[in-house]
């Protein structure tokens, strides 16, 4: 693979960019692979990447029913942070965040990780206490955060109304090295690197069945025929329930719509990511200038990638109150994704009832930020057959034991 660089661009410019190679190949599936990963979202691709990079396993196929990165990875609001309360969460999200720091260089693909800072506003006394608790936890977890004053909030984000009559801003939990990344590029960068390692990314190919013998997976049936494998990983987010059913088990997961919207682009006016959980909305400004906005999920199961408009209304209402100037901006586009929400709102990285089948799902409304960490931990689980330190707390067994990883306890935080 030819490397990307400013020099390469200059070289190509001279020949009108006729010489660029394909970013990833479009192979015909082989008969068998060591590992098949279902789902070419960020998590599936990162899992493949670290299988190759950390364990030298490259006889891998990533099977995608649509176009790679077209699931939630391609439709999320790209917030990256690791200021979680519970230790297992902080461990995996901080691992992910630190991998984001060098992702562009690691992949030789600019994913535009922008550590511009994430603030979570505290607008009730209860939230103040919750975020202070998180700040304490983070200090011990090695996650750099601080609880900041309303004055600092206003300084970092001048367009916020900190003295709103209904929910004045009482402070915020601030993670200076949180931020955003270019979501599509994360999928594309991993895909290019995987393809370069000789892995097969097979798009437009739906897994329709999982063949098994003696409690082990032997392969998958797909819309492009049967493919055998020695190990199988299901990394299909909103469709994990559908796939688990085909494999013969049920998950503690429900699939619901989560929506987002963007405004028309304007000149930079907001250099940080702001989340306001009391009023339920969050916002950042993309490098192209749109305000990227997200809110809450629908309460009912849904596979349409469309949500109900009243959630958009609630979110916009909250943000107009928090950022009065956006009242005169316009909503350009709204969309939805199908997120997989677990019983304790934390993800699942786990072995399954089938010996050589592993599952990675349940990232729900907040798994974009986890992509590299999750891929790292998942690759380890697949390669060794047992979860390592990062993945272990996220096993399916926790639901039986009552050993939940409940992040909502501090302040009902999503994303």
């Amino acid at each position: 693979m030819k490397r990307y660089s400013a020099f390469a661009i200059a070289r190509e410019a001279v020949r009108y960019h006729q010489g660029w190679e394909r970013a990833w190949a479009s192979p015909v599936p082989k008969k068998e692979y060591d590992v098949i990963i279902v789902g070419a979202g960020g998590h599936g691709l990162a899992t493949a990447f670290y299988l190759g990079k950390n364990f030298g396993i490259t006889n891998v196929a990533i099977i995608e029913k649509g176009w790679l990165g077209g699931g939630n990875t391609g439709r999320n609001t790209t917030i990256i942070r690791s200021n979680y309360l519970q230790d297992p969460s902080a461990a995996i999200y901080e691992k992910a965040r630190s991998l984001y720091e060098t992702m562009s260089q690691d992949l030789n693909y600019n994913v535009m990780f922008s550590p511009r800072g994430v603030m979570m506003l505290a607008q009730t006394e209860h939230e103040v206490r919750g975020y202070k608790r998180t700040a304490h936890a983070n200090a011990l977890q090695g996650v750099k955060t601080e609880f900041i004053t309303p004055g600092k909030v206003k300084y970092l984000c001048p367009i916020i109304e900190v003295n709103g009559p209904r929910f004045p801003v009482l402070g915020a939990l601030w993670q200076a090295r949180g931020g955003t990344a270019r979501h599509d590029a994360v999928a594309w960068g991993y895909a290019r690197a995987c393809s370069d390692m000789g892995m097969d990314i097979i798009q437009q190919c739906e897994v329709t069945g999982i063949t098994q013998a003696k409690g082990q997976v032997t392969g998958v049936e797909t819309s492009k025929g049967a493919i055998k494998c020695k190990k199988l990983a299901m990394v299909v987010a909103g469709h994990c329930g559908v796939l688990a059913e085909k494999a013969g088990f049920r998950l503690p997961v429900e699939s619901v719509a989560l929506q987002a919207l963007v405004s028309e682009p304007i000149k930079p006016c907001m250099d940080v990511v702001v989340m306001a959980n009391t009023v339920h909305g969050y916002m950042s400004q993309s490098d192209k200038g749109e305000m990227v906005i997200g809110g809450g999920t629908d309460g009912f199961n849904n596979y349409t990638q469309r949500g109900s408009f009243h959630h958009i209304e609630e979110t916009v209402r909250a943000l107009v109150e928090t950022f009065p100037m956006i009242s005169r901006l316009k909503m350009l586009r709204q969309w939805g994704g199908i997120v997989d929400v677990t019983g304790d709102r934390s993800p699942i990285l786990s072995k399954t009832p089938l010996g050589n089948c592993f599952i990675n799902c349940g990232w729900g409304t907040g798994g974009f930020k986890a992509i590299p960490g999750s891929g790292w931990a998942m690759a380890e689980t697949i390669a060794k057959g047992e979860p390592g330190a990062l993945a272990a707390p996220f096993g399916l067994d926790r639901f039986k034991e009552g050993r939940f990883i409940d992040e909502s306890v501090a302040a009902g935080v999503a994303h």
Partner: protein
Amino acid sequence: MSTRLQTGGTIIDRGQQIEFRWNGKRLRGFSGDTLASALLANNQMLLGRSFKYHRPRGLVASGAEEPNALVGLGEGARFEPNQRATTTELFSGLTAQPQNAWPSLEFDIGALNKMMTRFFPAGFYYKTFMYPRAAWKHVFEPVIRKAAGLGAAPKDPDADTYEHYHTHTDVMVIGGGISGLAAALEAGRSGARVLLVEQTANFGGRAIVDGVEIDGGDAESWINETLKTLNEMDNVTVVNRCLGAGVYDHGYVLAYQRLTDHTPDKDGPRHRLWRIRAKQVVTATGALERPLSFAGNDVPGVMLAGAVRDYATLYGVSVGDRVVIATNNDDAYRTAITLHRAGLIVPVIVDARPEANGTLPEQARALGIRIDTGKAIAKVKGGKRVTGVSLCVQAGEGSVLEEVACDAVAMSGGWSPVVHLWSHCGGKLNWDAEQAMFRPDPKRPPTGADGNGMLHVAGTANGYLDAASALADAGQAGRDAAKDAGFKPAAGTAPKAVSEAEAPILPVWSMPQGAGVKLQMKTFLDYQNDVKVSDVRLAAREGYESVEHTKRYTTLGMATDQGKLSNINGLAILADSLNAEIPRVGTTTFRPPYQPISMGAIAGSARAELFKPVRKSPVHAWFEDNGAVWEPVGDWRRPYTIRQAGENQKDAVKREILNTRQNVGLLDASTLGKIIVKGPDAGKFLDLLYTNMMSTLKPGFCRYGLMCTENGFLTDDGVVARLDEDTFLCHTTSGGSDRIHAWMEDWLQTEWWDFKVYTANLTEQYAQIAVVGPKARQVLEKLGGMDVSKESLPFMRFAEGTLAGIPARAFRISFSGELSYEIAVPASQGRAFWDKCLEAGAEFGIQPYGTEALHVMRAEKGFIMIGDETDGTIIPQDLNLNWAISKKKADFLGKRAQERSHMTDPDRWKLVGLLTENPADVLPDGAYAVDGTTAPTGIKTTIGRVTSSYYSPTLDRSIAMGLVKHGPERMGEVIDFPTTEGAVIKAKIVDPVFFDPEGEKQNV
């Protein structure tokens, strides 16, 4: 030069001149103008700069699809960025500024010269700016961001207001062209409720411009008559300036009405968002003209042929003196003819088709207009304005045959039906190869709640480009919709339209057909985002083959026009690059809104005091008048403390506590939940709901109870009073009343529906006022009316009667450890009772106290607080509340859950008291205790945490409660709490009851 013609302009009123400002200049237009037509009339061709390359941009279109002419409109609190000049109606005093250019529109240093653009093809930023690592955030990103973005951010809070409006209708028709009017008329005749919306100020759409004849007269007369008929029908509502913005599931439609954008001086809301429930929807949204892809097609002066005709016909404006027409279909000849008739010069019609012999070309020929068939535009010349075109053969690669001087080019690549609204909610499309367009597939419509189609498409939007068949189709759509909505439409009496017959279009996706890469790099698809033909081909070459990948890699169609002009051309190029059929490539997903809509409208009237309702207790106003510092609790506001003159918050809390402990305090506890549970099975039901046994409670008695979720976690607590054999009154936390009431009803309705139990939430029926402190009894005795003695009303009992003449129920319960009465009175008399307590209590030193004093006093007593000691992961056993968990009951909610291995784990952290070694140190809220070890993940091992921490004025030292691993077994041990500042606070593990452990103060 673009200019106002001497005559013409069907929708302007030349008698009414309007002054406005553009880019600092004072200009004039007429009533009826849009900002776009008025700018053209003033020879303002250069209106903006493109997104990426800052190239000069002028008007392309005349309607909502305009990608270039975006302006900053208005000033100050009424400034709005990215306003389309084409949809802005001119009004007196309008002020507009160009965008995305610095220092000026004419001289923009952001503009990249032609050489540089070569270095910035699609996706270049993914391939560079990676080294050194920190440079992205600090160097590259700021530069890119500064260049990107369009209009300026508004600075001030919006001065306007907005509102919502709901309506239910049988048939909703979107689009007020002749098709929409015909559909509405037919649907209306069936008796169905009909709502017709049109996004612009004017009805009739393109038919007026095209000179269509209907029922023997001109289109205008038919339109006016039809509108009149519709307006006279009681069951029909017609709204203009109202955009059909989005179609959602189950017949939900969003419409966006612009009420005062064109008359900003008028009072009232600026926009109104309509939330519509329609049984059936008809979209009659017409078609949009496509540009042609030739080099230089973005130079100001290159416009859509239909738009050029619109400006001439509707506004009497010419876009240039010499207008070259470029086309692949007959419709553009109408523009040529219109311009010719207006006295302008059409040097040549460049028609890519091998021949052009239809009615319209013949008419043009007869007028003496030169028609070059089989020809193409090789390149447009000019920088900030067209100066000429060079011609070539369409079949070739672009060798120039001839240069033609001109000052504008009118192009037409054919028409695309507006299928957006059909597609928002899942309607599918077919590719009509003959007409080169995507059309709605009537067999795969978006479906409603009943699984049947909920949308019909009418007229041009359905792919019927000629007026006659459009009208026939629209009438049928109106009738079909009415029928599907449950009405019986009469047989149609479709109006007959006549327009010139048109010869078939020749799909032309590239002009000339063999245009090489150099031309491709100058051929624009997406004008606003600067996406060129070469970019799409590059994306395909690099493997971004899915149309969705191409879109995201090149940003094609992601600009503010959402690809209304560019999408079809772009995907045709992609299909060609992949050597695939157009339908196989498919379209990108259509998403609402059809046109951007204001955030203000989406938020509606819910601003400031209407933002989110504050619940107010009957005593709220007293606090407002007496210095309360408010704290939100659920949706309520409760006073955190009530400051006296000159006092700070901390001192106020201290005073309130000491006064309550020494004299008597008054607390508004009205927000506490109060739920009546009544019926023969009420006891049995509460036994399932609470961890304690409630069925054994005797009438007249109170008992503190705990509720857990089915998952075992403590979710609410409160005192239950048994009013009589059948009736219990359950108190809940302030935040919990609605939730717990709903939770009770959930179990009663969906699990134990055989139980004979009724509930009612009486939270708001009563004001509840706590009189607390050693002198509480004296205050009540002074109020008089009820025996509140120790004997008649002992601890954990209640009594009914009157106090100070007000009906009251007095509970002897205490959350402070003091002698305490909570008195429930009818809410309407709550304020009166409060005032009387203050009056009667004056001699005893009564003082109201707030939630913080309440919290401190309960912590001094070691009482838990839901939300402090609990957080959704805590079981009662963690809080040593085993005494409140019945061992006798076979079942209660949470019981099974609490038997799981993790819940019975002896290592669970348990509640203890914590005393800092230095009494002046107050442990920080939420601090964790560590044992000095570190986990393999690098995380320091924690062994406990602070759940509540206060300075206690009663004890004059700090106190805290917390959960500690093996805590109760480690009494007296000292553990370390690191602070976020890096210090360590040492605290001793003690019993959590800090004050009056024997309960002597409350049992008096």
